[in-house]
């Protein structure tokens, strides 16, 4: 059998396979370069970037839970100028669409970030993070309310010609309502899910295990919630979806694709296996060959009746 086609298109971002990285779990790419061939990734989504450098939350910032981790990084990052001047030139060496995850405290911050990144060579798209549970201002404050979420998307769309992917939070009553609001406001694609708000207690110290008290749950523990979210939104809307949440193996990734995701992002699994993205790409290809599927497109949403 000839090699199956793995290429997908997410709102104009052309990926040679459906596998990308989840923001915040893959740095700016070079951290994982000793282990993976960056040219083989479908795309890279880089660490959440803000207008000015951010210090982040005090440690401990991470704690392990059954089949998952809780993190409260608090968006520590060196700021958008560092990203453009230092990280992006490195990433431009590779044949790799770069998607920049952006976060702000105010609607104006998002607009300014979008404008700053517009037309910068090497940036293929923006992922708008309105769903971070670990920062006081911004983050989830926008992502939990359809009107505020739509307002952020409108200013971002007004400030850039880049494809705009909006990252949704599962910490809401109806993720479909949020999805509808941001698509109505102009979102070209959706990514889901961000982490679930959670907490753990250190019983010896009788204190919360994270310095920030609460954090975001990720890893295999959240996969069923994420697959459900992708399924519901795919059923309700015609918009490309980047699915993520607990993907560790190619089988996990294929579940998201069959639920309706055009592409998938690998997050926490990178920490366990630095080659997780490569193994997942290989595994998806092997599955297509075994199942005699010539094009990955055939599987997108395939589980829907």
């Amino acid at each position: 059998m000839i090699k199956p086609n793995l290429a997908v298109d997410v709102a104009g971002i052309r990926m040679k396979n459906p596998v990308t990285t989840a923001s915040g779990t893959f740095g700016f790419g070079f951290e994982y370069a000793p282990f993976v061939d960056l040219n083989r990734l479908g795309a890279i989504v880089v660490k959440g970037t803000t207008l000015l450098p951010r210090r982040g939350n005090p440690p401990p910032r991470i704690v392990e839970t059954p089949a998952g981790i809780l993190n409260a990084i608090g968006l520590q990052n060196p700021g958008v100028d560092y990203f453009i001047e230092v990280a992006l030139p490195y990433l431009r060496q590779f044949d790799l669409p770069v998607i920049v995850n952006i976060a702000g405290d105010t609607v104006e911050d998002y607009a300014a970030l979008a404008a700053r990144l517009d037309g910068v060579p090497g940036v293929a798209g923006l992922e708008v993070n309105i769903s971070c549970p670990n920062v006081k201002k911004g983050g989830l404050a926008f992502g939990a309310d359809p009107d505020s979420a739509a307002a952020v998307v409108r200013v971002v769309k007004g400030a850039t010609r880049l494809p705009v992917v909006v990252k949704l939070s599962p910490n809401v009553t109806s993720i479909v309502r949020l999805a509808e609001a941001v698509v109505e406001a102009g979102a070209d694609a959706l990514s889901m899910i961000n982490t679930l708000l959670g907490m753990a207690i250190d019983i010896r110290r009788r204190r919360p295990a994270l310095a920030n008290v609460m954090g975001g749950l990720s890893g295999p523990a959240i996969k069923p919630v994420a697959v459900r979210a992708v399924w519901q939104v795919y059923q309700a809307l015609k918009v490309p979806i980047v699915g993520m949440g607990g993907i560790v193996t190619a089988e996990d990734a294929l579940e998201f694709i069959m639920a309706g995701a055009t592409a998938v992002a690998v997050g926490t699994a990178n920490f366990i296996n630095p080659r997780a993205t490569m193994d997942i790409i290989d595994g998806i290809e092997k599955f297509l060959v075994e199942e005699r599927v010539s094009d990955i497109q055939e599987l997108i949403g395939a589980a829907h009746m």
Partner: protein
Amino acid sequence: MVADIPAGVVQQEQVGPGQYRLTLYAPVIASLAVPGQFVYIRCTDGLDPLLRRPLSIHGVNRERGELFLLYQVVGRGTALLAARRRGERLGVMGPLGRGFTLPEPGRRVILVGGGIGVAPLVFLGQELVHRNNQVCLLVGVRSADQLPVGKKGYTVPFDFAVATDDGSCGHHGSVTDLLEKVLAGEGVDMVYACGPRGMLRQTASLLARYNVPGEFSLEERMGCGVGACLSCVCKTAGKGGEPSQYRRVCVEGPVFPAEQLVWD
């Protein structure tokens, strides 16, 4: 260069209560490792516990391609690790992080280890002796049976002195008492330390008082081990009046100059 390889267990040996010395066949890591670096190791093939565990490099035998780890069982990951036997293979990433900076030959160097914190210092001490430095290791443990060095099979090629909390061996008291005596005496060029936070904090204030430079190996909870997730940060002083900042233990550390650390 960094590798992620399945390393074979050569030997798993219990050396104290809950303390183990693990020998792995990992020639690439053994050939690259310098004192102070660590490995990020999968204790199980399954997904529970999910994350790898960071362990300092306790020594290498480059000819035989072997890597030594010394660890204390504290929870589920290290308990699973202790159950691994000869012939099994574990995922090992390394060598990771920045190691100790080594002084010129001929210097007088003091190593200060609290409990299992001696793990990276033994490798460092061997390297320092090899480079013709004068080395003395000060070890602090709760009780004599927890002493990882100095017993049968655990000889080290340099001087050492012991402090125990219960007085069962050596000085009755803390290892920083021993350090203070040494610092108050003849010239010490450099101090390297690894151990509990409280011990490091006290060591830092002694070094400041006696105006002796030092380097500490720190621990923080890790996610990726390679600098990508920003989980493992510690607070460091800003340069020239700038505010303090968080730096990653896994790539900017685990070894930091003592005077750069903020202890609040």
